[in-house]
């Protein structure tokens, strides 16, 4: 008995010790982070170094970071993540040494960085997600980059604003620039309508100019046996359960999927509850009733829909201009007759259709507060722009971009994408194909040029490159969009707000269910009005007012 009491007592003490040790650790970790990492991040050792006018640190500084590894990258023998063409150039040119604490596969980036932030041990710089970025700002762990940006090299500064100011604005808190946005190409990725042109020819249909034309095509692809197997086994329009292939369709009815738009009074409104959405859904309901949409779409994600496309069951798909590579290339591999072409989205009325675009920032390059020389990041970014976008020297190209063996450009430590790189690339490449003069091409351009040349010589494995970058390619459509500035941008460009985080997932699921039901015809189109009021009640109103508060105060 005595024994038992004693051991129970011991246990309690032990447990409390363990618990207190835990909580102490957790509390202390963020403030300890600087001392904790000092052993691994000798950035302080560079504190005495100054950046002379030519931008080289002497003695060299060391920055710690963490990174992803693309499965396609192979290092030359002796090279490693911290010793490769890019890092050697960073050191040679700017006196910046890099130390990568860990690398992880792309798919696990979020988990691993969350864990890292959770333990309070962040490296000198890394790529954070929007939500992480906001957390780090709130915890006051990040360096203010405002002055570093002002003195940044022109090239590096320009790339961040090329697609408009939204990306840079989204990285500002109280007017201070707290991160370098990893700009993507949201406008370039705007959807277009891909159509099986071999089917079009077979049924002698014209190319679509209006939504009516397109609906006729969809109808014909369903009912007139475009694949000629005398079976009624084809569908007109590709639809997936997350509606990723419907944005272009919605946009044709001036409805926008899941973005925030300005109303007449200058307030932000959620696009999915606008009356235009009702019209578009009604149309989809009709298409479904006429069996022009796969009756099982509600259970198929995009990769499943891609299977139907690859096996030549669907002839019309709204998607990004890049779809030529995936999944359409697989269809072309599989079906020797298959031909696709991208057309601009079409409007249901006399108003031209506009494409919805999101902010499209792929992440935020954040710098730890204690770092002495945050401007080093802009120097590194400058090298990226120079080598990836501007270099025309073949030798440098082999050294930094692609040696034919592996994608060396992926070894960079900081990058940002140009807003219309591929659209510009198509113009240059098609011009070079006409004139046979490749002197104006950069390394990346040359790669595309070679692929299209090989396609023209008969290699159908490279069909997708021609479908995107060729004279008739999808990037031509993108170019048209750009010229007409046919975009409606998502006006909400911040990390998710509290009510959004709390309700967003639930509300999104509920919305998806209601929309799917309407398309299935399980509920009549008038259910849409009920959906709108339900949406408001279930937290939509709270989110709307939150978003408008943010909009008024930004």
């Amino acid at each position, binding site marked *: 008995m005595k024994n038992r009491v004693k051991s129970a007592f011991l*246990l309690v003490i032990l447990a409390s010790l363990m618990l207190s040790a835990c909580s102490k650790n957790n509390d202390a970790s963020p403030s300890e982070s600087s001392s904790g990492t000092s052993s691994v991040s000798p950035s302080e050792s560079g504190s005495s170094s100054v950046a002379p006018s030519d931008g080289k640190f002497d003695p060299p500084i060391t920055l710690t970071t963490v990174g992803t590894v693309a499965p396609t990258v192979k290092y030359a023998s002796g090279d490693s993540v911290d010793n490769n063409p890019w890092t050697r150039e960073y050191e040679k040119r700017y006196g910046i040494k890099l130390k990568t604490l860990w690398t992880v596969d792309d798919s696990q980036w979020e988990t691993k960085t969350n864990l890292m932030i959770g333990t309070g041990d962040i490296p000198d710089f890394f790529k954070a997600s929007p939500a992480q970025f906001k957390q780090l700002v709130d915890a006051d762990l990040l360096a203010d980059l405002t002055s570093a940006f002002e003195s940044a090299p022109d090239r590096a500064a320009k790339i961040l604003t090329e697609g408009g100011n939204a990306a840079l604005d989204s990285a500002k808190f109280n007017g201070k620039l707290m991160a370098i946005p990893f700009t993507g*190409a949201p406008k370039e990725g705007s959807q277009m309508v891909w159509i099986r042109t071999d089917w079009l020819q077979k049924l002698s249909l014209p190319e679509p100019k209006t939504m009516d034309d397109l609906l006729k095509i969809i109808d014909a692809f369903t009912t007139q046996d475009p694949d000629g197997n005398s079976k009624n086994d084809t569908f007109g329009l590709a639809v997936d359960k997350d509606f990723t292939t419907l944005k272009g369709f919605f946009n044709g009815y001036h409805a926008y999927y899941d973005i925030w738009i300005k109303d007449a009074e200058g307030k932000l409104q959620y696009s999915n509850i606008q009356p235009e959405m009702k019209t578009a859904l009604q149309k989809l309901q009709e298409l479904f009733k006429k069996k022009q949409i796969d009756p099982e779409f509600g259970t198929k994600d*995009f*990769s499943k829909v891609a299977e139907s496309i*690859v*096996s030549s069951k669907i002839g019309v798909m709204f998607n990004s201009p890049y779809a030529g590579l995936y999944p359409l290339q697989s269809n072309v591999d599989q079906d020797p007759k298959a031909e696709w072409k991208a057309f601009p989205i079409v409007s249901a009325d006399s108003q031209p259709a506009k494409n919805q675009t999101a902010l499209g920032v792929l992440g935020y390059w954040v710098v730890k507060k204690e770092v002495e020389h945050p401007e080093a990041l802009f120097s590194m970014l400058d090298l990226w722009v120079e080598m990836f976008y501007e270099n025309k020297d073949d030798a440098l190209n082999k050294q930094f971009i692609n040696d034919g063996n592996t994608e060396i450009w992926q070894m960079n430590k900081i990058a940002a994408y140009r807003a219309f790189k591929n659209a510009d690339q198509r113009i240059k490449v098609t011009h070079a194909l006409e004139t046979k003069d490749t002197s104006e091409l950069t390394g990346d351009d040359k790669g595309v040029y070679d692929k299209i040349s090989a396609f023209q010589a008969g290699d159908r494995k490279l069909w997708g490159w021609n479908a995107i970058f060729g004279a008739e390619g999808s990037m031509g459509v993108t170019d048209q969009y750009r010229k007409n500035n046919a975009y409606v941008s998502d006006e909400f460009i911040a990390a998710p707000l509290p009510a959004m985080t709390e309700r967003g997932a639930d509300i999104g699921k509920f919305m998806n269910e209601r929309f799917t039901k309407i398309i299935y015809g399980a509920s009549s189109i008038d259910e849409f009005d009920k959906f709108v009021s339900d949406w408001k009640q279930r937290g939509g109103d709270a989110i709307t007012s939150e978003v408008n508060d943010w909009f008024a105060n930004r």
Partner: protein
Amino acid sequence: MHTTRSQQAFQIINFIILGLLSIMCILPLIHILAVSFSSSAAATGGAVKLWPIGFNWSSYEYVISSNRFLNSLGITFQRVLLGGLVNMILIVITAYPLSKESERFRPRTFYAWFFLLTILFSGGLIPIFMIIRETGIMGSIWALVLPGAVPVFSIILMLNFFRGLPRDLEEAAFIDGAGHLNTLFRVYVPLSLPALATISLLTIVGHWNAWFDGLVFMNSPDRYPLQSYLQTIIIQQDFTQMTEQDIKKMQLISDRTIKSAQIFLGSLPILLLYPFLQKYFVTGITLGSVKE
């Protein structure tokens, strides 16, 4: 023996239900195998069901020639051997004293609770991560072996098995002058082979299938054990937010036949091991549960 009608009916229903269950278990495996032998185009088109279309070996040739698969397979073997060994030693030497009564081993109750508590409560991911980091084993094979070095559930199995052994044997050993160590390794362990086989199967399967710790504790994808590596190649792409880079990557790694070949090869060793250890499985566990 005479069986009644209802018993027969019961047997038949049993066969049907169990048969269906086992078909449900084996069909996905056959499907994966069929896809791995099919031509890439047929697999991407979703045409392959249970029989390969366009039979070829190319995806296996590719997997064998790619470094990453073999590399991670090597790490998994290393982990299973090292982890299995550490686990088994610790299980045996922990279960032995705990199988004694409190009168003979005073702090037994304390230790029993000490171990039991770890089944009920865990520090959670972040504290474990910090411990791994502070002890400096992050990124080494030990980060995969040491955190799970003392599997309490297996210790309980072992301990119950030890208790089931006649005490007279132990007393006889003591009279012959054996100490605890001798008794344990010369008497208890040789008598416990069924239990040891069962537990080593559990341990090996556990180490073989673990993937999350590999992702979290390894500092670079080159050091991932097999299941972590497989997890990274089969994870679903988020199609709502695809960028140009993602699509280029998709085109490179979307090859289902190669994924299937890797999944199949990844489960092959354990499939081969199972039939040999499985026969101990039932006896091993039930023997341990019978107490004096």
